[in-house]
């Protein structure tokens, strides 16, 4: 028989990558919740929450196993290796399986862990577990229809979130990204407050609008990367199999470390529809992530979504979903298009600054408790954007820490709102007062939570903010605008203190209101959510290095290093 034609040279056994499997722990983490969802489908209704809690618990415990390989990363020599050009050996929990293989393309199931996503994965499983505990009294909710569906969607959401964080194939990333939208949409749209449909559709459309541009970038990057390798055959040696790459790639690591691709992408001569490729693609990706972050002009979905969403969903929304924006910047935008980032840096910093101040001012003017917390999230995530925009290691560190810190403090704040809402059935700040007298334990927790959100030193919110500010100021060598921006951002600490303290004063201090006097103290279940979060707020505030920086520094270092290399070329 005649040999069958093989398009790529040299011939290989049906694909470009071998199956690489260090361990399938990540895969288990991704799909265990989905499995739990399946279990709920066939279980009786009363069992739904038990299964959900078990699944979340097991997922969280399993996710703790992700930490040990990073423990040695504290010493500088080891830390440098993670996410390097020789990343194949240094990424942890790698699993790489050819998934959709065509003649001209290869989509892989490619998951792995480095310092960037490990903390976020653990945060995700942790917050989800707590949110699951927060959903435990589902049957007492005003809208408690179909607990099975609720918990199934809940677990599917976790699958999507973990998937987004661990995928290293852009295509896979995109699939998880979209996949996570749907459960969220339903969770808000079905179990939400009075304007739930409006909030849900707003959330959905905003996010979708962002991801459409991301899809364009996805496709463009794939084809341009193919050209890049073709133009520089000498650089086309693939790190992985030693074969020559002649097609484009969706592999994020490849895109961000392959020199030929970097050269091609960031070169001023590479055009896309007559615009410079790097800047255009950066913006396409940016819009998608900025919506999630959310950054100033595209933030209006957040307050609505939060106000309408049930408390556990708010916790996840604030604690995890917002982090995807920042994660996207650090994983995709900057490593792949440093030139784009450089070009847009002033714009991004301005957006970040405006988000910080604008969010704080808006928060100050709110009278709805939850809305206030939602606007404070916008303000806090502005620091992430600002820190990232200066493209320095300090800024990245600060942004990363801010994400984690906000991932701890904002679920706490939202849960604090939820606790009081369950009792009062309204959220009007001005109708509260003296709650600390009514519920002393809860009041103490609220103080910790809101002060962490305020950025009080010694609590988690501070480190991120100050690191970002230092990073921005430090970037003065590169950017003329850095110092004024840093000063204005620093001035925002006053505003933050203003609205948080005013909130505390109106809700927790003052005379006890008679209509709230009968409120029961926070229950054991509620305390079991608040206490771990409070403890983490404190621990992250006083041990930033040992709880976070040790793990992320190496990776961020590498990202900044490659970025600098590319920028140095142009």
């Amino acid at each position, binding site marked *: 028989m005649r040999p069958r034609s093989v398009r790529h040279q040299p011939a290989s056994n049906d694909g470009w990558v071998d199956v690489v499997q260090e361990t399938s722990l990540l895969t288990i983490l991704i799909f265990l919740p989905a499995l739990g969802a399946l279990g709920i489908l066939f279980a009786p209704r009363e069992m739904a929450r038990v299964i959900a809690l078990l699944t979340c618990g097991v997922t969280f415990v399993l996710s703790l196993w992700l930490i040990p390989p990073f423990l040695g990363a504290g010493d500088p020599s080891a830390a440098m290796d993670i996410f390097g050009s020789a990343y194949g050996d240094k990424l942890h929990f790698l699993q790489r399986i050819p998934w959709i293989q065509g003649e001209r393309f290869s989509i892989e199931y490619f998951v792995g862990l480095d310092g960037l996503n490990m903390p976020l994965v653990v945060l995700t499983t942790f917050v989800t577990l707590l949110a699951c505990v927060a959903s435990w009294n589902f049957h007492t909710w005003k809208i408690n229809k179909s607990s099975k569906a609720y918990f199934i969607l809940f677990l599917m959401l976790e699958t999507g979130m973990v998937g987004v964080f661990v995928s290293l194939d852009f295509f896979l990333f995109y699939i998880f990204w979209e996949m996570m939208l749907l459960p969220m949409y339903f969770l808000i749209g079905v179990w939400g407050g009075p304007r739930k449909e*409006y909030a849900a559709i707003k959330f959905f459309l905003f996010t979708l609008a962002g991801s459409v541009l991301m899809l364009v970038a996805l496709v463009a990057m794939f084809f341009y990367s193919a050209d890049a390798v073709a133009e520089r055959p000498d650089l086309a040696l693939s790190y992985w199999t030693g074969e020559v790459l002649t097609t484009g790639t969706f592999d994020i690591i490849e895109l961000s470390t392959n020199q030929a691709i970097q050269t091609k992408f960031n070169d001023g001569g590479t055009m896309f529809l007559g615009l410079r490729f790097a800047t255009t693609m950066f913006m396409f990706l940016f819009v998608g992530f900025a919506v999630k972050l959310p950054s100033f002009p595209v933030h209006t979905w957040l307050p609505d979504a939060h106000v309408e969403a049930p408390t556990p969903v708010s916790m996840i929304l604030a604690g995890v979903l917002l982090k995807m924006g920042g994660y996207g910047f650090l994983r995709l935008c900057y490593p792949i298009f440093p030139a784009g980032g450089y070009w847009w840096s002033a714009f991004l910093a301005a957006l970040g600054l405006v988000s910080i101040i604008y969010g704080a001012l808006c928060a*100050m*003017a709110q009278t709805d408790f939850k809305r206030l917390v939602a606007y404070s999230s916008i303000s806090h995530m502005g620091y992430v954007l600002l820190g990232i925009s200066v493209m320095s*290691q300090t800024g990245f560190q600060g942004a990363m820490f801010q994400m984690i810190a906000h991932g701890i403090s904002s679920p706490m704040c939202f849960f604090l709102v939820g606790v009081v809402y369950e009792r009062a059935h309204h959220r009007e700040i001005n109708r509260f007062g*003296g709650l600390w007298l009514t519920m002393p334990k809860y009041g103490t927790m609220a103080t910790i939570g809101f002060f962490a959100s305020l950025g009080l030193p010694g609590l988690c919110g501070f480190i991120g903010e100050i690191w970002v500010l230092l990073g921005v100021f430090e970037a003065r060598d590169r950017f003329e605008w850095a110092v004024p921006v840093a000063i204005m951002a*620093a001035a925002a600490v006053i505003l933050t203190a*203003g609205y948080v303290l005013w909130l505390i004063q109106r809700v927790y201090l003052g005379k*006890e209101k008679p209509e709230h006097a009968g409120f029961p103290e926070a229950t054991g279940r509620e305390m079991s959510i608040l206490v771990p979060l409070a403890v983490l707020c404190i621990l992250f505030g006083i041990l930033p*290095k040992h709880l976070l920086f040790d793990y992320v520094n190496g990776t961020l270092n590498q990202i900044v290093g490659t970025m600098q290399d590319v920028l140095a070329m142009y």
Partner: protein
Amino acid sequence: MAEISNYEIYLMAGVLIPLASFFILMLFGPRIGKPVAGWLTVLAMASSCALATITLVGWHADVNTPPDSITGRTVAQQLSIDASHNQFHWADIGSVPIKIGVKLDSLTVIMFFMVTFIATWIFIFSVGYMSGHSDEVDGKSKYHRFFCYLSLFGFSMLGLVISSNLLFLFMLWELVGLCSYLLIGFYFDKKFASNAAMKAFITNRVGDFGFIFGLMMVFFFLKTFDLDQAAIEFGRQFASSTGVFDAGFAINLFGWHVSGAMLATMMGIGLFCGAMGKSAQFPLQVWLPDAMAGPTPVSALIHAATMVAAGVYLVARIFRLLTPEAQFFIAVIGCITLTAMALIAMVQTDIKKCLAYSTLSQLGYMIFGMGVGAWTAALFHLMLHAFFKAMLFLGSGQVIEGCHHEQDMRKMGGLMKKMPMTGITFLVGVLAISGFGIPLMNVGLGGYFSKDEILAVAWDRAYMWHEPIEHHGDSGHGDAGGHGDSGGYADASGHADLGGYGEIDSHGSVMPSDASASSFMLVSDQHGSTGHDTGHADSGHADSGHDDSGHGDSLHGEAGHASGSHALGSVESLKASIPPLPKWMFWLALITAYVTPFYMMRCWWMTFMGKPRDQHVYDHAHESPLMWVPLVALAISTFGASYFVFRPMIADAAGAATDATLVLGLDGVAESAETASGALIHVHEAHHWLAYGVGGSWVIAFFVAFLIYRNGLATGAKLKAAFGPLATLLEHKYYFDELYDFLLVRGCRLAAAVCRAFDTYVIDLFANLSASIVERFAVFSGRGVDAHVVDGVFNGLAAASMDVSDLVRSPQTGRIRNYVLFAAAAAVVVVMVMLYFDGSDYPVVRHASTIGASSAGIQ
């Protein structure tokens, strides 16, 4: 890691014991119950105090050991250097490691002792105070919570004192602020208390904004937060002509080009802003009087003795990062505060408010002292003030408690009979703060010495500044003390850093050991500013330092010499370029020295002497032993502090300066400082007329106060009426509250409202536009859109998609055959378009030819 010395362990244990007490109370507070919780806190603080005492005694001995023959350092020096090696790698900023550790030097030890000692007595007082109060706070017991906060305060304040890292110091700084917030708002069910708490926190936050700005500058220029290394680096940058502080370097700040030297000044001012917040200096003073809403022990501990003094402590710590301009700024702020606040105190009728304004004024003195370079004197005043002001506040607390929560002095009077111990101790405090002493005999209470020293230095800065440095050697000169101080000044801003610079150069690189060897730099500052105390001894320092670097015969090699002389040269030129202190500042400070005794005596007289003005209050008045014992203890320590404790301590500091200069290899300074340790008493001899002036002030002021208030309030009221608008101005505290309320609070609220409106309406405008566009579409498809779509563009988008889908669905007949036809037609169109554009190059063909080529190749 060097071996951890006992002192470090003591200090750290002293910090952690209150923390442990905090945790115990937080977790088990309600179960522990009423008296035990309080006593537990007292016990914790007392053990910290015991540790502090052991440290103090031991350290005192270590400082006075002869220098080691090999290293040339005393035991204390060596321990201090070792301590700076025992640092905990706390975080990384970028790639710069941030390490935290215990800053072990004389200043730390003294401050630590002072805080624990005062705190212990105040805690004991609190047990008595709260036993009467806690029940009426509310039905639920907040007793344990009060002590919980106090413990936390103890922890954070002590941590702040021992921190060797500016960033970490800032964290504890804020934690202290938090405690202050919680304690001011302890009776938070009362509106004014929660308002005061919020005001305090936010005002401090304004100061912190400056602090953060300073931190950013420090990190940007010096790349470290370690106090010692920062100072070394600062000195190096400042001395170097290519450094960032040079004129050639500039930053564009809001379109305003700021030179490097200016930036160095701004860095210092930024850091000082933090101190302005905490120590309630001039524009940010508004929170402290309101903070008296907290329980009285809190006012005594936090808002008089320790926390507010932390600002001064911070300035002392960052003194080496201050340029002359920054110091001038500090001096101005201090001068304004001390005068303006003393004037307000004259018209206060609330006993606690009166004391609060007095505190502000005294803090102003300290800051002023720091600003004019009187480092030691300012710290000395800090210590003394802490003792007597704590005592005064506790006395007022006793009065308030005794008088059934009456704080208005106009309703008091004649209380001496009912509460004699309080009255006497209060009088001791009044005398101490007034600078009671007998000139030329060196007999007096604390304030007599410290305030006089500050004034002496100020006078020197104002009148003797442009005397050349060489003249300092002339010990016969009557104002040698003042010169000494100017030497100290130069030392602080440039000379000390020169030492660091030389050190680095001579060793080639900044090794950790070298860097920390210079951790004594601060002490060297101490010496420098102690210089004025020591008169000609200090001028010896200046000269010998000059000689040493000039001849290069010291422990340093040639490199050290070269850089040293260079640096010193720049110091001289620096000094030449700085104008002297304006004379009005000195005079303001001096006049205020007369105001202070007046209002203090007025306060005492109105409260304790004369006839009882409110019989009800008078009948209720009583005092309890648990509360007056601490008063007595503190009163005794005010005496003791003046004569037996703080004098030797200042000597220690000067002695430590000896150590530091040894490390730096400045032999001459070592000799001079040795004489300095024994020669403190001479300071007043160098200031004859100042001593008369200050020492005599209390006599005159007391007399005036006696004249006015001897027959009740009538004379005072008449006087007030005579001054009219001025009195009104003072009674309204210069209208600062109103101004801030209008500018900041209203401004912020307005901005917030604008932003909210923007969010709702501007985006709505956008939405309206989109909606109207959508409406056009809607007309096309025959369906109206809700004309009032105003809530977001995405509503409009949703509606638009509906309408578009209506449009699109009209061909969707549901008939299969039509669909087939559409598909076919579409195919035709596609093919035709492709044919039309390029008949020869459409993909179908290319693809076909590719297949052919490859198959041909295979065949």
